[in-house]
């Protein structure tokens, strides 16, 4: 234990401030580079250093509010936010996060929170990571061979047959308003249950499903993450009493600086390389989760307390 330990009142444990700051900064860099909140790495790491899982999930959401504000401002200055798209995603996101917090309370009662979190992560991350890796390597190879790729302007799929079509100027799209709403809803559930902003699902979905231009994706994703994580923090506080604000603030101090640095790096890296890098990180986390689930644990028993 270091000299700089800090007592976290809701988590009920003391942890090294420096470790928390470094953790926050590392996740912040990711956040800035990819436009993902980094919650999918933060939550498991917090649990690993001794924060109770329920507190880790809720406090991550709290720190993501600040991290995404910081990141979104940086993108907003570059004009990289599609506010109409973000607002529609939010509508779905609020409904989804409400359902998610309720689901979380049920899972906690039947003791399957950990399993659900691991399984959901593993499934999502493997699928997304693989898809992104295949796509980005393909375009990297094409570029190396010097073949100019021209993306078709109009690839019509059944998604384009949906009603309530709307023009999104910033994204140069004409698609159904239902798409961002449904996407926001699904990500809102994830956000509440997994303590993630959902950027790691949102970003690929915006690129590959909605076919938004890569430049506006991180900013728009961060913009809607601010509000979804804010609602999750509020709901988790009321429903489960698990938000450790002290923990969140310490992580944030490291995180916000990291996010600014990350945004700058992100602007310098090329799109394909960025996506390939994110894909590799996503796959590594998935592999670790699958490994943990299938390998016989050292200890077959786990404890939980109920207030009597």
């Amino acid at each position, binding site marked *: *234990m270091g000299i700089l*330990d*800090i*007592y*976290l*009142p*809701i988590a*009920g*444990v*003391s942890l090294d401030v420096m470790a928390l700051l470094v953790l926050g900064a590392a996740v912040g860099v990711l956040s800035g580079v990819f436009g993902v909140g980094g919650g999918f790495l933060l939550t498991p790491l917090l649990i690993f250093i001794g924060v109770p899982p329920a507190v880790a999930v809720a406090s991550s959401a*709290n*720190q993501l*509010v*600040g991290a*995404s*504000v*910081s*990141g979104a*401002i*940086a993108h907003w*200055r570059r004009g990289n936010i599609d506010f109409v798209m973000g607002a529609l995603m939010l509508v779905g996101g609020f409904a989804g996060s409400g359902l998610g917090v309720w689901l979380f309370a049920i899972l906690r009662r039947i*003791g*399957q929170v*950990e*399993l659900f979190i691991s*399984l959901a992560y593993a499934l999502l991350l493997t699928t997304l990571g693989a898809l992104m890796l295949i796509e980005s390597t393909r375009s990297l190879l094409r570029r190396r061979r010097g073949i100019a790729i021209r993306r078709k302007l109009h690839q019509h799929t059944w998604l384009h047959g949906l009603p309530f079509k709307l023009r999104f100027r910033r994204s140069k799209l004409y698609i159904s308003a239902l798409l961002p709403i449904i996407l926001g809803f699904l990500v809102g559930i994830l956000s509440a249950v997994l303590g993630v902003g959902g950027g790691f699902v949102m970003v690929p979905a915006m690129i590959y499903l909605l076919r938004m231009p890569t430049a506006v994706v991180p900013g728009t994703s961060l913009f809607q993450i*601010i509000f979804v994580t*804010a609602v999750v*923090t*509020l*709901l*988790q*506080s*009321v429903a489960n*009493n698990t*938000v450790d*604000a*002290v923990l*969140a*603030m310490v992580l*944030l*101090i490291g995180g*916000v600086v990291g*996010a*600014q640095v990350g945004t700058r790096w992100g602007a310098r890296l090329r799109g394909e390389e960025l996506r390939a890098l994110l894909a590799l990180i996503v796959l590594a986390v998935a592999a670790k989760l699958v490994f943990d*689930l*299938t*390998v*016989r*644990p050292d*200890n*077959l*028993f*786990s*404890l*939980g*307390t*109920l*207030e*009597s």
Partner: protein
Amino acid sequence: MKRWFVALAFLMAAFPARADQPLLADLTGHLIAITTGFTGTSVVLFGATDGPGDIVAIVRGPERDSVVWQKRHLAGMWINGPNVTFANVPSYYAVFSNRKLDDIAPPNAQALSQIGIANLRIDPRDPRTKQDETTTFRAALIAGQKRAHLFAEYPGSVVFLGDRLFRATLDFPANVPTGNYLVEVLLIRNGRVVSGQTTPLVIAESGLGADVSEFAQNNAALYGFTAVLVAALLGWLASLPFRNV
């Protein structure tokens, strides 16, 4: 019942000691404040006996119901399966003594006076729980609490200064649960408890930590709202120095 016990302990501490009492003991402090920099702490227990004997001090934290889950192998994965909920498990239980408990008293005497982790009464909340299940899960509960340093035995931690004066440093780990504690000091001679004294000890959060957790408990909605606002403000502040880059 518990309140009565605490009141009695207070009275015992308040009255001047009489010379004919076989055992007298007290703590250097009755309140442990958990502040932002809390990394565990210790309290000194000191006292006197009316002659040679063994001293055992039992520290008990507030009771809670605890669930123990057992993982099962299902479809290639290890997932939480059977579980047993135990009622009124002490959140903290430590035994400090001048030598090994087995040297102080025979096992049946230890069991009778409920001395030691092995003699803790931990029963399932559901009385229909099968005996073998209870045994397995209770063992897992105790092992888990020991790993977290919340159940512990410290033989040799009570030190005698001469025949009659004794002292012990009671160490509390950083993850010690908050609440009302009882410190039970026993004087044992020839394997029998001759005298006992119980002293209260309160472990409470104080300073910023206490304010935060009190706020979170009493006004969860406003607390959540404040947490969001402060986070957003920090995020905005952090982006200012980079404005013109």
